[in-house]
Protein backbone atom coordinates (compact mmCIF):
# COMPACT_ATOMS: atom_id res chain seq x y z
CA UNK A 1 0.00 0.00 0.00
CA UNK A 2 2.92 2.35 0.70
CA UNK A 3 4.10 2.11 -2.88
CA UNK A 4 0.55 2.59 -4.14
CA UNK A 5 0.04 5.62 -1.91
CA UNK A 6 3.36 7.09 -2.97
CA UNK A 7 2.44 6.64 -6.66
CA UNK A 8 -0.99 8.20 -6.12
CA UNK A 9 0.56 11.07 -4.17
CA UNK A 10 2.97 11.83 -7.02
CA UNK A 11 0.09 11.91 -9.48
CA UNK A 12 -2.07 14.11 -7.24
CA UNK A 13 0.82 16.45 -6.46
CA UNK A 14 1.45 17.00 -10.17
CA UNK A 15 -2.21 17.86 -10.72
CA UNK A 16 -2.21 20.29 -7.77
CA UNK A 17 1.06 21.96 -8.79
CA UNK A 18 -0.31 22.79 -12.22
CA UNK A 19 -3.61 24.14 -10.92
CA UNK A 20 -4.47 27.73 -10.05
CA UNK A 21 -6.59 26.64 -7.09
CA UNK A 22 -3.64 26.51 -4.62
CA UNK A 23 -2.78 30.09 -5.58
CA UNK A 24 -6.39 31.20 -5.18
CA UNK A 25 -6.75 29.56 -1.74
CA UNK A 26 -3.35 30.97 -0.70
CA UNK A 27 -4.42 34.45 -1.79
CA UNK A 28 -7.68 34.05 0.18
CA UNK A 29 -5.77 33.18 3.35
CA UNK A 30 -3.30 36.06 2.95
CA UNK A 31 -6.22 38.41 2.36
CA UNK A 32 -7.94 37.11 5.50
CA UNK A 33 -4.69 37.69 7.43
CA UNK A 34 -4.47 41.24 6.10
CA UNK A 35 -8.09 41.94 7.07
CA UNK A 36 -7.24 40.72 10.58
CA UNK A 37 -4.26 43.09 10.59
CA UNK A 38 -6.57 45.93 9.59
CA UNK A 39 -8.85 45.17 12.55
CA UNK A 40 -5.84 45.22 14.85
CA UNK A 41 -4.69 48.51 13.32
CA UNK A 42 -8.09 50.00 14.05
CA UNK A 43 -8.08 48.66 17.60
CA UNK A 44 -4.65 50.17 18.20
CA UNK A 45 -6.04 53.68 17.79
CA UNK A 46 -9.32 54.22 19.74
CA UNK A 47 -9.97 57.59 18.12
CA UNK A 48 -9.78 56.04 14.66
CA UNK A 49 -11.97 53.17 15.91
CA UNK A 50 -14.62 55.61 17.04
CA UNK A 51 -14.48 57.41 13.70
CA UNK A 52 -15.10 54.11 11.94
CA UNK A 53 -18.10 53.43 14.22
CA UNK A 54 -19.56 49.99 13.46
CA UNK A 55 -16.33 48.57 12.10
CA UNK A 56 -14.54 49.53 15.31
CA UNK A 57 -17.25 47.96 17.43
CA UNK A 58 -17.18 44.77 15.36
CA UNK A 59 -13.41 44.53 15.66
CA UNK A 60 -13.72 44.84 19.41
CA UNK A 61 -16.25 42.02 19.50
CA UNK A 62 -14.24 39.66 17.35
CA UNK A 63 -10.66 40.17 18.33
CA UNK A 64 -10.47 41.80 21.67
CA UNK A 65 -7.30 43.72 22.36
CA UNK A 66 -4.71 44.93 19.86
CA UNK A 67 -1.92 42.75 21.21
CA UNK A 68 -0.28 39.48 20.22
CA UNK A 69 -2.84 37.35 22.11
CA UNK A 70 -5.62 39.22 20.27
CA UNK A 71 -3.84 38.71 16.94
CA UNK A 72 -3.61 34.94 17.43
CA UNK A 73 -7.22 34.81 18.62
CA UNK A 74 -8.32 36.67 15.49
CA UNK A 75 -6.29 34.27 13.34
CA UNK A 76 -7.95 31.26 14.99
CA UNK A 77 -11.37 32.73 14.25
CA UNK A 78 -10.38 33.33 10.62
CA UNK A 79 -9.38 29.67 10.34
CA UNK A 80 -12.59 28.48 12.01
CA UNK A 81 -14.99 30.48 9.87
CA UNK A 82 -13.16 31.47 6.66
CA UNK A 83 -11.09 28.29 6.83
CA UNK A 84 -14.17 26.10 6.61
CA UNK A 85 -14.97 27.69 3.26
CA UNK A 86 -11.36 27.68 2.00
CA UNK A 87 -10.49 24.18 3.28
CA UNK A 88 -13.87 22.99 2.03
CA UNK A 89 -13.03 24.39 -1.40
CA UNK A 90 -9.74 22.45 -1.33
CA UNK A 91 -11.54 19.18 -0.56
CA UNK A 92 -14.37 19.63 -3.03
CA UNK A 93 -11.92 20.64 -5.75
CA UNK A 94 -9.65 17.61 -5.17
CA UNK A 95 -12.57 15.21 -5.63
CA UNK A 96 -15.04 17.22 -7.70
CA UNK A 97 -12.58 18.03 -10.47
CA UNK A 98 -12.38 14.36 -11.45
CA UNK A 99 -16.04 14.52 -12.41
CA UNK A 100 -16.04 17.99 -13.95
CA UNK A 101 -13.00 17.09 -16.07
CA UNK A 102 -14.49 13.61 -16.70
CA UNK A 103 -11.25 12.00 -15.56
CA UNK A 104 -12.79 9.92 -12.74
CA UNK A 105 -13.17 6.93 -15.07
CA UNK A 106 -9.41 6.97 -15.70
CA UNK A 107 -8.81 6.27 -12.00
CA UNK A 108 -10.98 3.17 -11.72
CA UNK A 109 -9.13 0.25 -13.35
CA UNK A 110 -5.51 0.79 -12.42
CA UNK A 111 -2.82 -1.14 -10.57
CA UNK A 112 -3.01 1.57 -7.90
CA UNK A 113 -6.26 0.85 -6.02
CA UNK A 114 -9.01 3.45 -5.82
CA UNK A 115 -8.70 3.70 -2.02
CA UNK A 116 -5.02 4.71 -2.46
CA UNK A 117 -6.12 7.52 -4.80
CA UNK A 118 -8.71 8.65 -2.23
CA UNK A 119 -6.15 8.47 0.59
CA UNK A 120 -3.64 10.45 -1.50
CA UNK A 121 -6.23 13.17 -2.07
CA UNK A 122 -7.01 13.31 1.66
CA UNK A 123 -3.33 13.41 2.67
CA UNK A 124 -2.58 16.06 0.08
CA UNK A 125 -5.66 18.04 1.17
CA UNK A 126 -4.50 17.92 4.79
CA UNK A 127 -1.00 19.08 3.82
CA UNK A 128 -2.53 21.84 1.72
CA UNK A 129 -4.71 23.03 4.63
CA UNK A 130 -1.65 22.98 6.91
CA UNK A 131 0.30 25.05 4.39
CA UNK A 132 -2.56 27.56 4.21
CA UNK A 133 -2.62 27.81 8.01
CA UNK A 134 1.15 28.39 8.10
CA UNK A 135 0.67 31.06 5.44
CA UNK A 136 -1.99 32.76 7.59
CA UNK A 137 0.25 32.56 10.66
CA UNK A 138 3.10 34.06 8.64
CA UNK A 139 0.86 36.93 7.55
CA UNK A 140 -0.29 37.50 11.14
CA UNK A 141 3.31 37.43 12.46
CA UNK A 142 4.55 39.81 9.76
CA UNK A 143 1.66 42.25 10.19
CA UNK A 144 1.89 42.03 14.00
CA UNK A 145 5.58 42.89 13.82
CA UNK A 146 4.82 45.81 11.48
CA UNK A 147 2.13 47.10 13.84
CA UNK A 148 4.54 46.62 16.77
CA UNK A 149 1.86 44.84 18.79
CA UNK A 150 2.54 44.62 22.51
CA UNK A 151 2.45 41.46 24.65
CA UNK A 152 4.87 39.19 22.77
CA UNK A 153 6.25 36.27 24.72
CA UNK A 154 7.25 32.76 23.67
CA UNK A 155 4.41 31.26 25.70
CA UNK A 156 1.84 33.64 24.16
CA UNK A 157 3.11 32.79 20.68
CA UNK A 158 3.15 29.06 21.42
CA UNK A 159 -0.31 29.05 22.91
CA UNK A 160 -1.72 31.31 20.18
CA UNK A 161 -0.20 29.31 17.33
CA UNK A 162 -1.28 26.08 19.06
CA UNK A 163 -4.91 27.26 19.13
CA UNK A 164 -4.72 28.30 15.47
CA UNK A 165 -3.26 24.91 14.46
CA UNK A 166 -5.77 22.95 16.56
CA UNK A 167 -8.62 24.94 15.03
CA UNK A 168 -7.15 24.33 11.57
CA UNK A 169 -6.84 20.58 12.22
CA UNK A 170 -10.49 20.35 13.24
CA UNK A 171 -11.60 22.50 10.30
CA UNK A 172 -9.56 20.37 7.89
CA UNK A 173 -11.26 17.30 9.37
CA UNK A 174 -14.67 18.82 8.65
CA UNK A 175 -13.61 19.48 5.05
CA UNK A 176 -13.71 15.70 4.39
CA UNK A 177 -17.51 16.14 4.31
CA UNK A 178 -17.19 18.11 1.08
CA UNK A 179 -14.85 15.55 -0.50
CA UNK A 180 -17.52 12.93 0.14
CA UNK A 181 -20.27 15.23 -1.16
CA UNK A 182 -18.28 15.99 -4.33
CA UNK A 183 -17.75 12.25 -4.91
CA UNK A 184 -21.30 11.08 -4.28
CA UNK A 185 -22.70 14.12 -6.08
CA UNK A 186 -20.20 13.60 -8.93
CA UNK A 187 -19.08 17.21 -9.18
CA UNK A 188 -18.55 20.53 -7.46
CA UNK A 189 -22.09 21.78 -7.25
CA UNK A 190 -23.62 19.35 -4.72
CA UNK A 191 -20.56 19.82 -2.49
CA UNK A 192 -20.87 23.61 -2.67
CA UNK A 193 -24.50 23.21 -1.62
CA UNK A 194 -23.48 21.06 1.36
CA UNK A 195 -20.76 23.57 2.26
CA UNK A 196 -23.19 26.48 2.43
CA UNK A 197 -25.74 24.37 4.26
CA UNK A 198 -23.25 23.33 6.96
CA UNK A 199 -21.87 26.87 7.39
CA UNK A 200 -25.42 28.17 7.83
CA UNK A 201 -26.42 25.31 10.14
CA UNK A 202 -23.33 25.92 12.31
CA UNK A 203 -24.38 29.54 12.80
CA UNK A 204 -27.94 28.60 13.71
CA UNK A 205 -27.03 25.70 16.02
CA UNK A 206 -24.36 27.76 17.79
CA UNK A 207 -26.83 30.63 18.23
CA UNK A 208 -29.36 28.38 20.01
CA UNK A 209 -26.65 27.08 22.32
CA UNK A 210 -25.94 23.58 21.02
CA UNK A 211 -22.74 24.42 19.12
CA UNK A 212 -20.51 22.38 21.42
CA UNK A 213 -22.22 19.22 20.09
CA UNK A 214 -22.49 20.18 16.47
CA UNK A 215 -19.23 19.26 14.65
CA UNK A 216 -19.35 22.19 12.18
CA UNK A 217 -19.62 24.71 15.05
CA UNK A 218 -16.87 23.17 17.23
CA UNK A 219 -13.78 24.83 15.61
CA UNK A 220 -15.39 28.28 15.85
CA UNK A 221 -16.15 27.73 19.52
CA UNK A 222 -12.60 26.50 20.11
CA UNK A 223 -11.32 29.68 18.44
CA UNK A 224 -13.44 31.79 20.77
CA UNK A 225 -15.79 33.21 18.16
CA UNK A 226 -18.69 33.15 20.62
CA UNK A 227 -16.83 35.51 22.95
CA UNK A 228 -15.18 35.19 26.35
CA UNK A 229 -18.42 34.26 28.15
CA UNK A 230 -18.80 30.98 26.25
CA UNK A 231 -16.83 27.91 27.31
CA UNK A 232 -14.66 26.06 24.78
CA UNK A 233 -16.13 22.84 23.38
CA UNK A 234 -15.43 19.75 25.45
CA UNK A 235 -13.90 16.43 24.52
CA UNK A 236 -17.26 15.22 23.21
CA UNK A 237 -17.41 18.01 20.64
CA UNK A 238 -13.85 17.40 19.50
CA UNK A 239 -14.50 13.64 19.37
CA UNK A 240 -17.55 14.33 17.20
CA UNK A 241 -15.35 16.20 14.69
CA UNK A 242 -12.73 13.42 14.69
CA UNK A 243 -15.40 10.75 14.21
CA UNK A 244 -17.05 12.76 11.44
CA UNK A 245 -13.71 13.18 9.64
CA UNK A 246 -12.89 9.47 9.98
CA UNK A 247 -16.38 8.50 8.88
CA UNK A 248 -16.38 10.78 5.82
CA UNK A 249 -12.89 9.64 4.79
CA UNK A 250 -13.86 5.97 5.07
CA UNK A 251 -17.19 6.56 3.32
CA UNK A 252 -15.41 8.33 0.43
CA UNK A 253 -13.01 5.40 0.00
CA UNK A 254 -15.87 2.89 0.15
CA UNK A 255 -17.90 4.92 -2.34
CA UNK A 256 -15.03 5.01 -4.85
CA UNK A 257 -14.43 1.28 -4.37
CA UNK A 258 -18.00 0.05 -4.51
CA UNK A 259 -20.31 2.54 -6.24
CA UNK A 260 -21.51 2.01 -9.79
CA UNK A 261 -19.46 4.39 -11.91
CA UNK A 262 -21.83 4.54 -14.82
CA UNK A 263 -21.21 8.14 -15.88
Amino acid at each position, binding site marked *: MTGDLSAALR*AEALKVRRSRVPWATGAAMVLAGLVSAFFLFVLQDPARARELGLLGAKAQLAGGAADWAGAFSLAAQVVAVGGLIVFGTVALWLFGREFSDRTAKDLLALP*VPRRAVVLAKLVLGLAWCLALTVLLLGTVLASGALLELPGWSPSTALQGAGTVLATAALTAGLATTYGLAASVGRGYLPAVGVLFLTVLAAQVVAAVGYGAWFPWAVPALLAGTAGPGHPAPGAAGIAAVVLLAAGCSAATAVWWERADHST
Partner: protein
Amino acid sequence: MDGPDGSAGAAGGPPRVLLHEVSKRYGPVSAVDSVSLSIGAGEVYALLGLNGAGKTTLLRLLLGMVRPSGGTAALLGRPVGDRRTWARVGYLVETPSAYPELTVRENLEVVRYLRRLPDRTAVDDAVERFGLTAYADRRARALSLGNLQRLGLAKALLHRPELVVLDEPVNGLDPAGVAEIRALLAGLAREHGATVLLSSHLLGEVARIATRIGVLHEGRLVEELDAAALARRVHRHVRVTTRDDARAADALTRAGLAPRRVPGAVLLEDAWSRDRPDAVATVLVRSGVPPTGLAVVQEDLESHFLRVVGADPAGSPGDR
Protein backbone atom coordinates in the same frame (compact mmCIF):
# COMPACT_ATOMS: atom_id res chain seq x y z
CA MET B 1 -15.64 -19.47 -35.01
CA ASP B 2 -17.04 -19.92 -31.54
CA GLY B 3 -20.57 -19.00 -30.73
CA PRO B 4 -21.38 -16.89 -27.73
CA ASP B 5 -21.24 -19.87 -25.41
CA GLY B 6 -18.30 -18.57 -23.44
CA SER B 7 -16.37 -21.80 -23.73
CA ALA B 8 -13.18 -20.74 -25.42
CA GLY B 9 -11.51 -17.90 -27.21
CA ALA B 10 -12.04 -17.94 -30.92
CA ALA B 11 -8.33 -17.66 -31.62
CA GLY B 12 -7.54 -20.65 -29.41
CA GLY B 13 -5.93 -20.75 -25.99
CA PRO B 14 -7.53 -19.56 -22.81
CA PRO B 15 -9.95 -16.70 -23.38
CA ARG B 16 -8.80 -13.26 -22.35
CA VAL B 17 -12.32 -12.02 -22.02
CA LEU B 18 -14.98 -14.38 -20.78
CA LEU B 19 -18.54 -13.33 -20.07
CA HIS B 20 -21.22 -15.74 -18.95
CA GLU B 21 -24.80 -14.49 -19.00
CA VAL B 22 -23.82 -11.07 -17.74
CA SER B 23 -26.68 -8.67 -17.07
CA LYS B 24 -27.00 -5.16 -15.78
CA ARG B 25 -30.29 -3.61 -14.77
CA TYR B 26 -31.00 -0.07 -13.68
CA GLY B 27 -34.39 -0.37 -12.03
CA PRO B 28 -36.80 -1.53 -14.72
CA VAL B 29 -34.29 -0.83 -17.51
CA SER B 30 -32.13 -3.68 -18.73
CA ALA B 31 -28.90 -2.10 -20.03
CA VAL B 32 -27.16 -5.44 -20.63
CA ASP B 33 -29.19 -8.59 -20.88
CA SER B 34 -27.62 -12.02 -20.40
CA VAL B 35 -24.58 -11.51 -22.63
CA SER B 36 -22.09 -14.35 -23.03
CA LEU B 37 -18.96 -14.07 -25.11
CA SER B 38 -15.41 -15.28 -25.25
CA ILE B 39 -12.48 -13.49 -26.86
CA GLY B 40 -9.05 -15.00 -27.34
CA ALA B 41 -5.51 -13.71 -27.76
CA GLY B 42 -4.76 -11.78 -30.94
CA GLU B 43 -8.40 -11.05 -31.74
CA VAL B 44 -9.82 -7.66 -32.60
CA TYR B 45 -13.40 -7.98 -31.40
CA ALA B 46 -15.84 -5.20 -32.18
CA LEU B 47 -19.04 -4.60 -30.31
CA LEU B 48 -21.34 -3.01 -32.81
CA GLY B 49 -24.49 -1.26 -31.78
CA LEU B 50 -26.63 1.80 -32.07
CA ASN B 51 -26.39 4.52 -29.46
CA GLY B 52 -27.90 3.18 -26.26
CA ALA B 53 -27.45 -0.45 -27.27
CA GLY B 54 -25.48 -1.19 -24.10
CA LYS B 55 -21.93 -1.14 -25.52
CA THR B 56 -20.47 1.29 -23.01
CA THR B 57 -22.23 -0.36 -20.08
CA LEU B 58 -20.81 -3.72 -21.16
CA LEU B 59 -17.30 -2.24 -21.37
CA ARG B 60 -17.73 -0.61 -17.96
CA LEU B 61 -18.85 -3.97 -16.56
CA LEU B 62 -15.68 -5.55 -17.92
CA LEU B 63 -13.55 -2.84 -16.37
CA GLY B 64 -15.15 -3.23 -12.95
CA MET B 65 -16.67 0.24 -13.07
CA VAL B 66 -20.20 -1.07 -12.64
CA ARG B 67 -21.26 -4.27 -10.94
CA PRO B 68 -23.27 -6.82 -12.87
CA SER B 69 -26.79 -7.61 -11.72
CA GLY B 70 -26.18 -11.21 -12.77
CA GLY B 71 -23.71 -13.53 -14.47
CA THR B 72 -19.93 -13.76 -14.25
CA ALA B 73 -17.13 -11.94 -16.03
CA ALA B 74 -13.41 -12.67 -16.16
CA LEU B 75 -10.45 -10.92 -17.76
CA LEU B 76 -7.12 -12.60 -18.40
CA GLY B 77 -8.22 -15.64 -16.40
CA ARG B 78 -9.19 -13.72 -13.28
CA PRO B 79 -12.58 -12.46 -12.10
CA VAL B 80 -13.26 -8.83 -12.96
CA GLY B 81 -12.19 -6.68 -10.04
CA ASP B 82 -9.01 -8.62 -9.28
CA ARG B 83 -6.54 -5.76 -9.05
CA ARG B 84 -3.65 -7.81 -10.47
CA THR B 85 -5.41 -7.76 -13.82
CA TRP B 86 -5.36 -4.02 -14.32
CA ALA B 87 -1.61 -3.80 -14.95
CA ARG B 88 -2.22 -5.84 -18.12
CA VAL B 89 -5.32 -3.97 -19.32
CA GLY B 90 -5.50 -0.62 -21.09
CA TYR B 91 -8.75 1.19 -21.69
CA LEU B 92 -10.48 4.22 -23.10
CA VAL B 93 -14.13 4.57 -22.16
CA GLU B 94 -16.48 7.07 -23.78
CA THR B 95 -15.11 10.48 -24.71
CA PRO B 96 -11.40 10.90 -24.05
CA SER B 97 -10.62 13.17 -21.14
CA ALA B 98 -7.51 14.75 -19.72
CA TYR B 99 -6.54 17.20 -17.01
CA PRO B 100 -6.92 20.48 -18.91
CA GLU B 101 -4.16 22.44 -17.16
CA LEU B 102 -1.62 19.65 -17.60
CA THR B 103 0.36 19.27 -20.79
CA VAL B 104 0.12 16.15 -22.95
CA ARG B 105 3.37 14.88 -21.44
CA GLU B 106 2.20 15.60 -17.88
CA ASN B 107 -1.11 13.83 -18.48
CA LEU B 108 0.87 10.78 -19.56
CA GLU B 109 3.15 11.15 -16.51
CA VAL B 110 0.07 10.95 -14.26
CA VAL B 111 -0.85 7.67 -15.94
CA ARG B 112 2.72 6.42 -15.65
CA TYR B 113 2.68 7.09 -11.89
CA LEU B 114 -0.71 5.43 -11.42
CA ARG B 115 0.33 2.42 -13.49
CA ARG B 116 3.55 2.29 -11.49
CA LEU B 117 5.72 2.13 -14.58
CA PRO B 118 9.36 2.64 -13.64
CA ASP B 119 10.45 3.28 -17.24
CA ARG B 120 10.53 7.07 -17.72
CA THR B 121 10.95 6.64 -21.48
CA ALA B 122 7.44 5.14 -21.73
CA VAL B 123 5.97 8.64 -21.94
CA ASP B 124 8.30 9.82 -24.71
CA ASP B 125 7.70 6.58 -26.55
CA ALA B 126 3.92 7.02 -26.37
CA VAL B 127 4.15 10.66 -27.44
CA GLU B 128 6.03 9.56 -30.54
CA ARG B 129 3.90 6.49 -31.29
CA PHE B 130 0.70 8.49 -31.27
CA GLY B 131 1.96 11.43 -33.29
CA LEU B 132 1.84 13.85 -30.35
CA THR B 133 5.43 15.10 -30.51
CA ALA B 134 4.41 18.55 -31.75
CA TYR B 135 1.86 18.85 -28.93
CA ALA B 136 3.84 17.24 -26.09
CA ASP B 137 4.20 20.48 -24.15
CA ARG B 138 0.79 21.87 -25.02
CA ARG B 139 -1.86 21.97 -22.33
CA ALA B 140 -4.65 19.45 -22.86
CA ARG B 141 -7.30 22.19 -22.84
CA ALA B 142 -5.79 23.54 -26.08
CA LEU B 143 -5.93 20.21 -27.95
CA SER B 144 -8.27 19.53 -30.83
CA LEU B 145 -10.77 16.68 -30.45
CA GLY B 146 -8.60 14.49 -32.66
CA ASN B 147 -5.46 15.09 -30.62
CA LEU B 148 -7.41 14.58 -27.41
CA GLN B 149 -8.45 11.20 -28.84
CA ARG B 150 -4.79 10.43 -29.59
CA LEU B 151 -3.90 11.35 -26.02
CA GLY B 152 -6.68 9.07 -24.75
CA LEU B 153 -5.30 6.20 -26.83
CA ALA B 154 -1.74 6.96 -25.69
CA LYS B 155 -2.93 6.78 -22.06
CA ALA B 156 -4.67 3.46 -22.75
CA LEU B 157 -1.66 1.92 -24.48
CA LEU B 158 1.18 3.53 -22.50
CA HIS B 159 2.06 0.25 -20.79
CA ARG B 160 1.63 -1.97 -23.88
CA PRO B 161 -1.24 -3.99 -22.38
CA GLU B 162 -2.26 -7.53 -23.31
CA LEU B 163 -5.91 -6.54 -23.39
CA VAL B 164 -7.10 -3.24 -24.80
CA VAL B 165 -10.67 -2.07 -24.25
CA LEU B 166 -11.62 0.92 -26.38
CA ASP B 167 -14.93 2.72 -26.66
CA GLU B 168 -15.38 4.34 -30.08
CA PRO B 169 -11.59 4.64 -30.61
CA VAL B 170 -11.66 6.58 -33.89
CA ASN B 171 -14.17 9.23 -32.82
CA GLY B 172 -13.00 12.69 -33.82
CA LEU B 173 -10.01 11.52 -35.83
CA ASP B 174 -9.43 12.69 -39.37
CA PRO B 175 -9.17 10.03 -42.12
CA ALA B 176 -5.38 9.84 -41.79
CA GLY B 177 -5.72 9.43 -38.03
CA VAL B 178 -8.34 6.71 -38.48
CA ALA B 179 -6.02 4.77 -40.79
CA GLU B 180 -3.14 5.25 -38.37
CA ILE B 181 -5.07 3.96 -35.37
CA ARG B 182 -6.50 1.11 -37.42
CA ALA B 183 -2.96 0.04 -38.36
CA LEU B 184 -1.77 0.43 -34.79
CA LEU B 185 -4.54 -1.73 -33.34
CA ALA B 186 -4.14 -4.35 -36.02
CA GLY B 187 -0.38 -4.39 -35.34
CA LEU B 188 -0.98 -4.78 -31.61
CA ALA B 189 -3.10 -7.84 -32.22
CA ARG B 190 -1.04 -9.37 -35.01
CA GLU B 191 2.50 -8.68 -33.85
CA HIS B 192 2.14 -8.56 -30.09
CA GLY B 193 -0.76 -11.00 -29.65
CA ALA B 194 -2.77 -8.35 -27.81
CA THR B 195 -6.53 -8.71 -27.61
CA VAL B 196 -8.46 -5.65 -28.69
CA LEU B 197 -12.09 -5.22 -27.66
CA LEU B 198 -13.65 -2.13 -29.11
CA SER B 199 -17.08 -0.68 -29.50
CA SER B 200 -18.34 1.28 -32.44
CA HIS B 201 -21.42 2.31 -34.32
CA LEU B 202 -19.47 2.71 -37.55
CA LEU B 203 -20.21 -0.37 -39.62
CA GLY B 204 -17.65 0.39 -42.33
CA GLU B 205 -14.88 1.07 -39.84
CA VAL B 206 -15.60 -2.05 -37.83
CA ALA B 207 -15.65 -4.21 -40.94
CA ARG B 208 -12.13 -3.05 -41.79
CA ILE B 209 -10.56 -3.52 -38.40
CA ALA B 210 -12.31 -6.37 -36.58
CA THR B 211 -11.66 -10.07 -36.85
CA ARG B 212 -14.92 -10.78 -35.06
CA ILE B 213 -18.04 -8.74 -34.49
CA GLY B 214 -20.80 -8.90 -31.92
CA VAL B 215 -23.98 -6.99 -32.63
CA LEU B 216 -25.52 -5.61 -29.47
CA HIS B 217 -29.12 -4.46 -29.55
CA GLU B 218 -31.15 -3.34 -26.55
CA GLY B 219 -28.59 -4.94 -24.27
CA ARG B 220 -28.63 -8.32 -25.97
CA LEU B 221 -25.94 -9.89 -28.13
CA VAL B 222 -28.18 -10.61 -31.11
CA GLU B 223 -25.55 -11.64 -33.63
CA GLU B 224 -21.94 -12.75 -33.49
CA LEU B 225 -19.93 -13.36 -36.62
CA ASP B 226 -16.55 -12.88 -38.20
CA ALA B 227 -15.79 -9.92 -40.42
CA ALA B 228 -16.17 -11.82 -43.68
CA ALA B 229 -19.55 -13.17 -42.64
CA LEU B 230 -20.71 -9.65 -41.83
CA ALA B 231 -19.76 -8.44 -45.28
CA ARG B 232 -21.78 -11.29 -46.77
CA ARG B 233 -24.80 -10.65 -44.59
CA VAL B 234 -25.04 -6.94 -45.00
CA HIS B 235 -27.48 -6.24 -47.81
CA ARG B 236 -26.28 -4.34 -50.85
CA HIS B 237 -28.25 -3.25 -53.86
CA VAL B 238 -27.88 -1.21 -57.01
CA ARG B 239 -29.72 2.09 -57.04
CA VAL B 240 -30.38 3.54 -60.47
CA THR B 241 -31.79 6.93 -61.32
CA THR B 242 -32.86 7.86 -64.85
CA ARG B 243 -34.95 10.52 -66.58
CA ASP B 244 -37.73 7.93 -67.06
CA ASP B 245 -37.78 5.30 -64.30
CA ALA B 246 -40.81 3.49 -65.74
CA ARG B 247 -39.01 2.86 -69.06
CA ALA B 248 -35.83 1.91 -67.21
CA ALA B 249 -37.71 -0.65 -65.11
CA ASP B 250 -39.26 -2.14 -68.26
CA ALA B 251 -35.87 -2.37 -69.96
CA LEU B 252 -34.30 -4.07 -66.95
CA THR B 253 -37.23 -6.50 -66.71
CA ARG B 254 -36.82 -7.36 -70.39
CA ALA B 255 -33.13 -8.04 -69.64
CA GLY B 256 -34.19 -10.68 -67.12
CA LEU B 257 -33.64 -8.65 -63.99
CA ALA B 258 -36.10 -7.90 -61.17
CA PRO B 259 -36.19 -4.13 -60.69
CA ARG B 260 -38.17 -2.58 -57.88
CA ARG B 261 -39.40 0.96 -58.21
CA VAL B 262 -39.21 3.32 -55.26
CA PRO B 263 -39.88 7.05 -55.39
CA GLY B 264 -37.15 8.64 -57.51
CA ALA B 265 -35.18 5.47 -58.22
CA VAL B 266 -35.12 1.87 -59.40
CA LEU B 267 -33.53 -0.77 -57.17
CA LEU B 268 -31.86 -4.03 -58.18
CA GLU B 269 -31.21 -6.40 -55.30
CA ASP B 270 -29.88 -9.49 -57.07
CA ALA B 271 -26.25 -10.62 -56.84
CA TRP B 272 -25.63 -10.27 -60.62
CA SER B 273 -26.56 -6.61 -60.60
CA ARG B 274 -24.47 -5.94 -57.47
CA ASP B 275 -21.43 -7.62 -59.01
CA ARG B 276 -21.85 -6.08 -62.49
CA PRO B 277 -23.17 -2.53 -62.20
CA ASP B 278 -21.36 -1.72 -65.47
CA ALA B 279 -23.52 -4.31 -67.26
CA VAL B 280 -26.66 -2.76 -65.75
CA ALA B 281 -25.56 0.60 -67.16
CA THR B 282 -24.99 -0.99 -70.60
CA VAL B 283 -28.52 -2.46 -70.60
CA LEU B 284 -29.99 0.94 -69.84
CA VAL B 285 -27.89 2.79 -72.43
CA ARG B 286 -28.83 0.29 -75.13
CA SER B 287 -32.50 0.67 -74.21
CA GLY B 288 -32.34 4.44 -74.67
CA VAL B 289 -32.70 5.33 -70.94
CA PRO B 290 -29.11 6.03 -69.89
CA PRO B 291 -28.65 6.26 -66.10
CA THR B 292 -28.23 9.69 -64.57
CA GLY B 293 -26.99 7.97 -61.45
CA LEU B 294 -25.94 4.45 -60.56
CA ALA B 295 -24.47 3.27 -57.28
CA VAL B 296 -23.96 0.08 -55.33
CA VAL B 297 -25.43 0.97 -51.98
CA GLN B 298 -24.63 -0.88 -48.79
CA GLU B 299 -27.33 -0.86 -46.18
CA ASP B 300 -26.55 1.28 -43.20
CA LEU B 301 -26.09 -0.06 -39.72
CA GLU B 302 -29.53 0.89 -38.59
CA SER B 303 -31.14 -1.01 -41.45
CA HIS B 304 -28.96 -4.01 -40.71
CA PHE B 305 -29.95 -3.92 -37.06
CA LEU B 306 -33.62 -3.56 -37.82
CA ARG B 307 -33.37 -6.57 -40.07
CA VAL B 308 -31.36 -8.56 -37.51
CA VAL B 309 -33.97 -7.89 -34.85
CA GLY B 310 -36.79 -8.54 -37.32
CA ALA B 311 -38.24 -5.04 -37.26
CA ASP B 312 -37.58 -3.51 -40.66
CA PRO B 313 -40.76 -1.60 -41.36
CA ALA B 314 -39.58 -0.15 -44.69
CA GLY B 315 -38.51 -3.47 -46.14
CA SER B 316 -36.05 -1.58 -48.21
CA PRO B 317 -32.56 -1.86 -46.87
CA GLY B 318 -30.44 1.20 -47.26
CA ASP B 319 -33.09 3.18 -48.97
CA ARG B 320 -34.22 5.27 -46.05
